[in-house]
């Protein structure tokens, strides 16, 4: 490609990888200061390199692609190690490295008292490496490498406190549930290879663009649906969302970075990246929208009845990811990505703020043991409040702009989706403020002595709070506009007013229940009866999966695989082998007399017989 600057994009990946390698190999012997410097420095360097690359690239009217080497060559199929930046990935890069840097800074303060400091930062840097591969990849296979890599790091970090059984269980759950999604993703890749003969995104999308719209299904629809399966796993959508709330077993910076701001948006990113495929598959688009909507509502409902502050925000993340899927499904890709960006700001802020609260209370996560912290940890309170207002969608905070872009697009697509979305927005405002009120207002109900977090922790909070206030004015949607077909932006003021009204309604309800009439919540819960129990029981999804999937597999493994295959086939085979070699050896043992001269005699006899046969056969010619 002529006139393209050589930007050395690989350096963006290289810095975090180097950090991970240094901290992972010799980190044990380094001081915490050095480890923290390496970890923050490597991510900050890659942020700066992204910034430099983007400033060189300017308008990015066509993607900037750098091809390094041929990775796999098999017949006609060539897969290269190629990295690219286009308008979409530039936004993701800035979010991942920018928010990533802030969270790394915060984590240095948060993890200060923890064991395995070096291990934590090694994993965190490795995560950044894989996430950046995922974003920068120019072909699906390389993207898949990043996709699996972030899954691995997520597993490692959820299970960071591996001495606790629940952490190990949560890590396994995340890994296994994600595997289902990954299976769909790899099937999609195989189908793409079979059909397009290439995995290079530019080539595939070029070919997809020329194909007709599939009104009643076809190969593009299948590819799109399989990609959705993958995206559902990674982005925690119904029915594969169950791993994300449990993933909160990991340290809080991990929840903020991986399970709120970056990795879980990978599914959204992939769908937005493959927009050419999805635009040709209206059925798949509809599926995405409906999945997103169901996820948004279900998770928001569950979020209202959680008592662990991190679980509340976890369900909120699931719900917000649902919003992003709605945006993708109704064709408002740029609104979806816009929400990814603003969500990264305010959800990272909420999680880091929650971490700051937990830190202040020496590890207490139960909302019922908090309260009245407003004056004790004022900076955390202020920043968390901003995050809550932002997620509730109050003008002019960040969440308002992206959420309303999504809701307007949903209304243009199908009005009922708008109403469900607005209802969910009200619920969102309610449960987030419920958490805030329970945490900061009323009487202090705990025993620990709260203390404000150190500057290294609240500085990232302040920066993220500023971004949550002003992030809505970033021109993300205009920047993305050339990538996606024009979407009529009916700037209907009434619809906007309705959604804001719902947000205020939610906030007020939370205020009424938890501040004006503290203790009244139980009464309301009781009057709801079975509905409340279902919500508090998370709709018994985990239990249903247990009965429908986990138990049959466990039982089948025990009765068929263990008692059948393992004991009869495998052990039987091994035992038979042993018996045969023992009897053969027993027979041969008689030859082994231990007398050297008899061995020599055997050799001589052998030689004589050999020569005799040779001579009888006429010798060697």
């Amino acid at each position, binding site marked *: 490609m002529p006139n393209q600057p050589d930007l050395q994009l690989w350096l963006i990946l290289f810095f975090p990888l180097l950090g991970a390698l240094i901290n992972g190999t010799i980190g044990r012997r380094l001081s915490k200061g050095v480890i923290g410097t390496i970890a923050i420095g490597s991510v900050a360097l890659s942020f700066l390199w992204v910034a430099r690359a983007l400033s060189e690239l300017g308008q990015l009217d066509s993607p900037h692609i750098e091809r390094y080497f041929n990775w796999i060559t098999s017949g006609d199929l060539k897969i290269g190690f190629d990295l690219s930046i286009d308008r979409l990935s530039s936004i993701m890069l800035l979010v991942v490295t920018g928010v990533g840097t802030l969270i790394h800074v915060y984590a240095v303060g948060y993890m200060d008292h923890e064991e395995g400091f070096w291990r934590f930062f090694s994993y965190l840097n490795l995560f950044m490496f894989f996430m950046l591969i995922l974003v920068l990849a120019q072909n699906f296979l390389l993207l898949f490498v990043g996709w699996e890599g972030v899954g691995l790091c997520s597993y490692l970090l959820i299970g960071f406190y591996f001495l606790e059984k629940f952490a190990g269980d949560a890590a396994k759950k995340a890994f296994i549930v994600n595997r289902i999604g990954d299976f769909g993703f790899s099937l999609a890749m195989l189908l793409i290879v079979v059909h397009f003969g290439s995995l290079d995104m530019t080539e595939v999308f070029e070919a997809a663009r020329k194909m007709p719209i599939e009104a009643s299904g076809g190969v593009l629809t299948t590819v799109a649906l399989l990609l959705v399966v993958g995206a559902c796993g990674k982005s925690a959508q119904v029915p594969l969302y169950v791993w994300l709330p449990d993933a909160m077993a990991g340290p809080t910076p991990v929840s903020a970075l991986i399970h709120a701001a970056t990795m879980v948006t990978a599914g959204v990113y992939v769908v937005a990246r493959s927009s050419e495929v999805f635009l040709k598959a209206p059925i798949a688009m509809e599926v995405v929208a409906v999945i997103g909507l169901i996820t948004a509502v279900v998770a928001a409902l569950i979020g209202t009845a959680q008592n662990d502050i991190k679980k509340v925000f976890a369900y909120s993340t699931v719900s917000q990811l649902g919003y992003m899927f709605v945006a993708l499904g109704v064709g408002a890709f740029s609104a979806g990505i816009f929400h990814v960006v603003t969500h990264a700001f305010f959800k990272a802020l909420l999680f880091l703020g929650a971490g700051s609260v937990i830190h202040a209370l020496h590890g207490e996560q139960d909302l019922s043991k908090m309260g009245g912290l407003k004056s004790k940890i004022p900076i955390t309170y202020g920043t968390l409040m901003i995050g809550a207002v932002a997620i509730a969608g109050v003008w002019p905070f960040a969440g308002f702009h992206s959420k309303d872009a999504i809701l307007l697009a949903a209304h243009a697509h199908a009005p009922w989706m708008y109403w469900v979305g607005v209802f969910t927005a009200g619920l969102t405002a309610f449960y987030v403020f419920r958490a805030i009120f329970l945490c900061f207002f009323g009487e202090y109900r705990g025993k620990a002595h709260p203390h404000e977090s150190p500057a290294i922790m609240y500085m990232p909070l302040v920066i993220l709070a500023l971004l949550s206030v002003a992030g809505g004015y970033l021109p993300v949607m205009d920047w993305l506009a050339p990538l996606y077909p024009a979407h009529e932006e009916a700037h209907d003021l009434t619809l906007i007013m309705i959604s804001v009204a719902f947000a205020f309604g939610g906030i007020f309800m939370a205020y009424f229940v938890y501040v004006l009439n503290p203790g009244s919540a139980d009464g309301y819960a009781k009057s709801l009866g079975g509905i409340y129990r279902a919500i508090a029981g998370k709709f018994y999804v985990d239990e249903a999966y247990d009965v429908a999937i986990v138990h049959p597999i466990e039982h089948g493994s025990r009765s068929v695989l263990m008692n059948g295959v393992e004991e009869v086939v495998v052990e039987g085979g091994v035992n038979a082998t042993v018996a045969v070699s023992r009897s053969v050896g027993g027979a041969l043992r008689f030859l*082994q007399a*231990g*007398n*050297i*001269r008899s061995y*020599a005699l055997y050799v*001589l006899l052998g030689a004589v017989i050999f020569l005799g046969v040779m001579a009888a056969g006429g010798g060697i010619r």
Partner: protein
Amino acid sequence: MPQLNAVPLSWYLMLSAILFTLGVAGFLFRRNIITVFMSIELMLNAVNLSFVAFSHHLRQVDGQIFTFFVMVVAAAEAAVGLAIILTVFKNRRTLSIDEVSSLKN
């Protein structure tokens, strides 16, 4: 070298065969380990003799090279073998090959 040429190849081979048979017989029938060891050397040298004889007869140098290899290996083998014999004698106070059979069963 007319004198050498006067001796036909078959004589060398016969001598080699006789020496080899003597080696085999010694290996099979003697009990003293050192004698057995010397019998092995005798067999090796019998083969060396036929190598050299063939080499001369065919006017090719290969056989002589082989001979050197055999000598090198034989030297190494002698070093190791004698060391083993010494150790066996130190431990067992015997050089009878029939009494060194503890690997049996």
